[in-house]
């Protein structure tokens, strides 16, 4: 395994690469012919084929965003948008080819499935290679499958929801996604069904100079509940990889959805992801998000509170090291009375890393008696790192409670001395302070993920002193 610099030491639990073996890899670039070829390879129905072509037109018309991180290094002519792994979809790990199975073994996915999950999906490059769910959920009518199967087997449900929450023209990378999407998970939880144990999809991008464009569509019907976990990682290559996934969540009246993410893309990844939830009457949408990897990340999950009494919470943390520019945040639109949003965002930057919290809170005219409280806190571990907060608050009615609180801080020498006087090395002391800072987020994660997050923090802090 090649290691490019000292910072990358010990990332090897994520950084192992398999040989770039595939069944089919589309040529690099983005043309009508390439889209047609992908659609053919995927055996799309007509409506999907047309949607892809329309999306390509929209993509070509839209400009790159003029705000936020510089994306000029992204050259779509250098990215292969579709890589089919040497594996069909399996519902037993035994049937997954050895090297791919080993990948997920190292990431602990099959083990987690045995101990703490009700269902698992695993995507390798552009296609889902494994999907499985406990029988009890199947019996209750819960659907959890890969997106391609859903397009085939639940055409009406998919057609009425696919790219309806996130419209194709939302922004350039949504259009790109719609044109080349492949893989992802589909979940439907029927009315009144409570799924007590989480479902989890894991996305692994192995192939260099390629992109991953998975589509996740979740419908939690009235009075139902679900916890969905998304994990992502990739080994590091010298050239950029692109991730432009799309997550559409429908949280119907009186239902509950928690969507947790641990993102640990490699540091050559441009993560330009779009996530949105539409929340119904008295329903609740919770986002939990840990963002560690990527060279550039632009990720702003969004909740649209359309039903009276709808609630949303966002709990997120970003950790930017050397060469990373993580422009993350949260957006919420209050469209109905008595809606509520709570945001608790944290960021850590070190070794010249940059974290920006970019947010929108819009409380519309109709959203009387709504509440919104936003708290963001940044921790900088040295003098060369950067942290920024760019909130937009658009409050169109008087009868609301709104608060925004932002704090930026550094680790004080006094605190380090205190901890060192208890026998902790300087490195241990910093790691303890950072873990404590991140605790309000890690405590919201399932135990294995909280442990993984603490390991990531320790990993990020190794060699960060001095």
């Amino acid at each position: 395994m090649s290691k490019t610099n000292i910072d990358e030491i010990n990332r090897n639990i994520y950084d192992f690469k398999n040989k770039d073996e595939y069944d089919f890899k589309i040529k690099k670039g983005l043309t009508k012919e390439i889209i047609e070829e992908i659609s053919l390879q995927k055996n799309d129905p007509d409506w999907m084929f047309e949607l892809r072509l329309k999306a390509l037109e929209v993509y070509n018309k839209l400009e790159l965003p003029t705000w936020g991180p510089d994306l000029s290094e992204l050259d779509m002519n250098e990215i292969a948008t579709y890589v089919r792994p040497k594996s069909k979809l399996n519902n037993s790990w035994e049937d997954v080819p050895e090297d791919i199975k080993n990948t997920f073994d190292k990431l602990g996915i099959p083990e987690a499935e045995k101990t703490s999950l009700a269902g698992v999906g695993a995507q390798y490059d552009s296609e889902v290679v494994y999907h499985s769910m406990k029988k009890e959920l199947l019996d209750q009518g819960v659907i959890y499958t890969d997106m391609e199967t859903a397009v085939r087997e639940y055409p009406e449900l998919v057609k009425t929801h696919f790219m309806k929450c996130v419209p194709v023209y939302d922004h350039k990378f949504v259009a790109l996604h719609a044109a080349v999407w492949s893989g992802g998970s589909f979940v439907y939880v029927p009315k009144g069904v409570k799924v007590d144990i989480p479902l989890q999809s894991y996305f692994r991008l192995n192939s260099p100079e390629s992109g991953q464009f998975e589509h996740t569509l979740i419908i939690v019907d009235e009075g139902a509940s679900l916890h969905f976990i998304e994990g992502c990682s990739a080994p590091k290559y010298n050239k950029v990889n692109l991730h432009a996934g799309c997550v559409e969540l429908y949280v119907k009246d009186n239902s509950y959805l928690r969507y947790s993410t641990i993102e640990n893309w490699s540091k050559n990844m441009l993560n330009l992801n779009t996530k949105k939830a539409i929340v119904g009457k008295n329903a609740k949408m919770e986002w939990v998000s840990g963002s560690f990897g990527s060279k550039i990340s632009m990720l702003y999950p969004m909740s649209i509170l359309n039903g009276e009494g709808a609630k949303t919470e966002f709990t997120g943390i970003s950790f930017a090291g050397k060469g990373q520019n993580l422009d993350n945040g949260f957006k919420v639109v209050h469209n109905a009375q008595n809606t509520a949003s709570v945001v608790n965002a944290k960021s850590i930057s070190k070794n010249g890393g940059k974290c920006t919290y970019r947010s929108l809170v819009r409380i519309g005219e109709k959203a009387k008696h709504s509440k919104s409280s936003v708290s963001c806190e940044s921790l900088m571990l040295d003098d060369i790192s950067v942290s920024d907060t760019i909130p937009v608050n658009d409050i169109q009615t008087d009868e609301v409670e709104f608060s925004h609180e932002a704090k930026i801080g550094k680790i004080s020498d006094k605190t380090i001395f205190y901890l060192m006087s208890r026998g902790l090395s300087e490195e241990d002391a910093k790691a303890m302070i950072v873990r404590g800072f991140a605790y309000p987020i890690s405590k919201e994660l399932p135990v294995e993920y909280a442990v993984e997050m603490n390991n990531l923090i320790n990993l990020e802090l190794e060699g960060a002193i001095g």
Partner: protein
Amino acid sequence: MGENLLEIKDLYANAENKEILKGINLTIKKGEIHVIMGPNGSGKTTTANAILNHPMYQKPKGEIFFEDENITNLKTDEIARKGIFMSFQLPEEIPGVSVTNFLKYAKNKTTGKSVKVFEFRDELKKYMEELKMDPKNMERSLNVGFSGGEKKKNEILQMLVLNPKLAILDETDSGLDVDAIKTVSKGIEMFKNEQNSVLIITHNTKILHSLKVDFVHVLVDGRIVKTGSQELAREIEENGYGEYKKRLIDKSQPTEQSCFLPISHFIKR
């Protein structure tokens, strides 16, 4: 009494280029309790910080030995692992790290082995009862939202759990009411045995009402000007530091007849 535990030889210490300690000599043997008393700004906290090699203080001259090993320039955490503990005047707050987890982690680090979970929990419970601490505090973030008294008791709890060879208690009694001081004294008595030692740093004598000590040192302007028994503390309680300060002024500023102290004596660092 036994052999030397801590030996400070002619120690000078500066902070921000200002000379604070001007030749401290102090020997603490195993099994002894020592008290350093002195007015504000005399260098008491600096003495404690200098022993633990706080990076903010320079030590241009002098040496510190612990169990005959020169520890003058060791890193703070190395000194802590040798068996020196300091109770802070203003303990730091660590959000997101519970008291239990912190203590477990620190104990692992100081002893170099993993604590046994159940034994540890029982030990902790026992100490907390003795110190009249609310058991709920165990799961709260370390010192976050603790009252002044709770923070000080928490320092004593840490001392008991980490069980050092030498405990330096910097102004642990200040700001506490009579009952809390008694509890702290009880904690010290629980900790104390023939093999370990305590160095109490204080500017008042309240804690000495409920604790028997072996030596009292008076620190004025960076020097130990007098050493005596517990009786010395009683004298100071009655007469204050005036005599020692005056003597110092007479020595250092022979031309000035005023009995007022230079303002620097009253500035708290």
